[in-house]
């Protein structure tokens, strides 16, 4: 088992009073899965990702990664953010090498490795460009290259397509599936947060629905349709309808 959430709750202190954001999350995620976490705004989806990569510590329960309780930042995880999180004064190459140098690679090795992943995401030719010269889709490719370059086993993505226009988003989703399926890459498992159910059904093997206040896992749905999945197919619509209905019941 790659990852387990065991009775995980997150409680914040709000003006001296405890406020529970997530309650009793329990789930197990195996390697080689593409998992989407869906749910309404404010239900704790992004907090769940931050607990998984160790940026936050559970108030109750534990996150277990490869049979060991997580006690700090999970170095076998990398994160892709909704707003790209690029440093505007650095070029594409410098943005990608930054994380590698932070992990102890010398500049030469970091540049060589970054070049490989810049190429993987189709950004060859843009190495010297600054973020302001790039479209939203290109910026997110840089975010993806930066995450892949640290060769994580688990890739976490927090609404990575929600800042993009529909056509760019469609293209990047397809390319993400290609990257996930690439056996030459270290990344075997993706956990992606989204609030767009169609996006989850298009991409995921499994959709985890978090809802309520505090947020709880209210459904865990397997998506068994073969890929590529066509949005206009009957099976696709049936899956989307089923998740929408569950969400409506739980919210």
């Amino acid at each position, binding site marked *: 088992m790659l990852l387990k959430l065991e009775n995980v709750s997150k409680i914040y202190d709000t003006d001296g009073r405890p406020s529970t954001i997530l309650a009793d999350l329990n789930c197990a995620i195996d390697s080689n899965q593409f998992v989407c976490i869906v749910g309404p705004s404010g239900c704790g989806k992004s907090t769940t990702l931050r607990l998984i990569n160790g940026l936050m510590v559970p108030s109750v329960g534990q996150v277990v990664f490869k049979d060991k309780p997580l006690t700090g930042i999970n170095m076998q995880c990398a994160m892709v953010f909704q707003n790209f999180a690029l440093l505007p004064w650095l070029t594409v190459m410098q943005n990608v090498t930054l994380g590698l140098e932070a992990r102890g690679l010398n500049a030469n090795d970091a540049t060589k490795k970054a070049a490989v992943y810049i*190429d*993987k*995401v*189709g950004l*060859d*030719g*843009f190495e*010297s*460009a*600054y973020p302001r*010269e790039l*479209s939203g*889709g*290109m910026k997110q490719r840089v975010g993806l290259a930066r995450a892949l370059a640290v060769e994580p086993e688990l890739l976490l993505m927090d609404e990575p397509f929600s800042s993009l*226009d*529909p*056509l*760019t*988003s*469609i*293209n*990047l989703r*397809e*390319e993400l599936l*290609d*990257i996930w399926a*690439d056996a030459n890459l270290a990344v075997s498992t993706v956990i992606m947060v989204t609030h767009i159910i169609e996006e989850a059904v298009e991409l995921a093997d499994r959709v985890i629905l978090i809802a309520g206040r505090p947020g709880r896992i209210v459904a865990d749905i397997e998506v068994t349709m073969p890929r590529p999945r*066509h*949005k*206009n197919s009957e099976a696709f619509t049936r899956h989307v309808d089923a998740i929408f209905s569950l969400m409506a019941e739980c919210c």
Partner: protein
Amino acid sequence: MTEASSPEPADPSSAVPFVTPLPPAGLSKVLGLLEILDDHGGREDIYKLARELRDSFGELIIIIKAAEILDLVETPGGDLVMLPLGKQVIELPVNEKKKIISRQVAKLSLIRHMTDFLRAREGQQATRQEVLDELARTLPTERPKPQFEALVNWGRYSELMTFSRDEDVLRIAQKAV
């Protein structure tokens, strides 16, 4: 016959060469258009696509124009129809897609003209202002700045040109030398 399938080479020696402008569209959007068209079985009314994408009709037309000049789609009677090359592109992994699109980009008259323009210069490079001046000369009815942005974007994507914002210089890419 579209631009990318035209056998006529650009003529850098002519006083004002005949070149057609680049549609100011990102190539990621062109690839996204192919994906959505494939979801529709390879043929759809353009207005229906615009409605589905909730996109500005004007912007969608520019993206379609970009796909058309790359020989990926055609537009008979208000429909958008996938061409065999478009179908081939969407079935390939990222870098194989990029190779085909790059090959098509390299055939476009403006790209060929600007490549020849750069190659003819010392160091195979020109400043932004020199490129803007050449664009204004060759495309007198177009605004040079959007053409410059498109040229840099498509030139970088196809790895034919590099642009350094620090130096403000456009160059022939080493891989293309």
